């Protein structure tokens, strides 16, 4: 629940989602669900020439189970808030 709430607060931010198959996609976080499935808008693949399949894709849905990393800009991350939330969850 913690990361679901966290990602809900990050809706509208630019993120880079790196998948387990090494594909990295940059886009605006549109929505997230309880499985941490991610919907991105305005997407562009980080290494476009390596993945020509995705050239015309601007919005995509990514299944939560295939995400390796969600890269966020450091200014947007409030460490203290995350610490507090983690402590609350652990109780």
């Amino acid at each position, binding site marked *: 629940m913690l990361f679901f709430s966290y990602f809900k607060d990050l809706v509208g931010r630019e993120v880079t989602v790196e*998948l387990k*198959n090494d*594909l990295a*996609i940059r886009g605006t976080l549109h*929505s997230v*669900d*309880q*499985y941490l*499935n991610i*919907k991105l808008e305005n*997407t562009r693949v980080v290494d476009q*020439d390596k993945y*020509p*399949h*995705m*050239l*015309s*894709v*601007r*919005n*995509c*849905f*990514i*299944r939560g*189970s*295939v995400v390796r990393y969600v890269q966020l800009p450091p200014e947007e991350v409030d460490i203290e808030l995350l610490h507090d939330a983690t402590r609350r969850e652990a109780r």
Partner: protein
Amino acid sequence: MMIAFSTLVLLPILAKLVMLLGDGRHLLGLLRSFDQFASIVLEGACERVIVGDLYCDIPLGLNVIRGENVVLIGEMDMEKEELPSHMTAVSTAEIKRAQKAGRDATYLKGSMKNIMKSLDID
């Protein structure tokens, strides 16, 4: 809770999609249905095989794909170019040959590396 997933996928219903599967395959088609596991019904599906600058669309018809194999579902923007202009369409037989050539090259590279390793050559 299924509502959350529905809002994610509902938008591109009936839209032309690119779907990436867990085994690396790329499918194109029209989204007809989905469920809470991200299982998909894809109509008019074709598998787009890309090897270097060659590509081939292999028609598959109506498919049901189990959710655990789905990696990514992308909505194709009809106004944008589907593929880079330097790519050429080839027949199924030719793309299969190109794929096999790629696999053989990888295997050869792998076996050469192993031979070098066993001979302890830097």
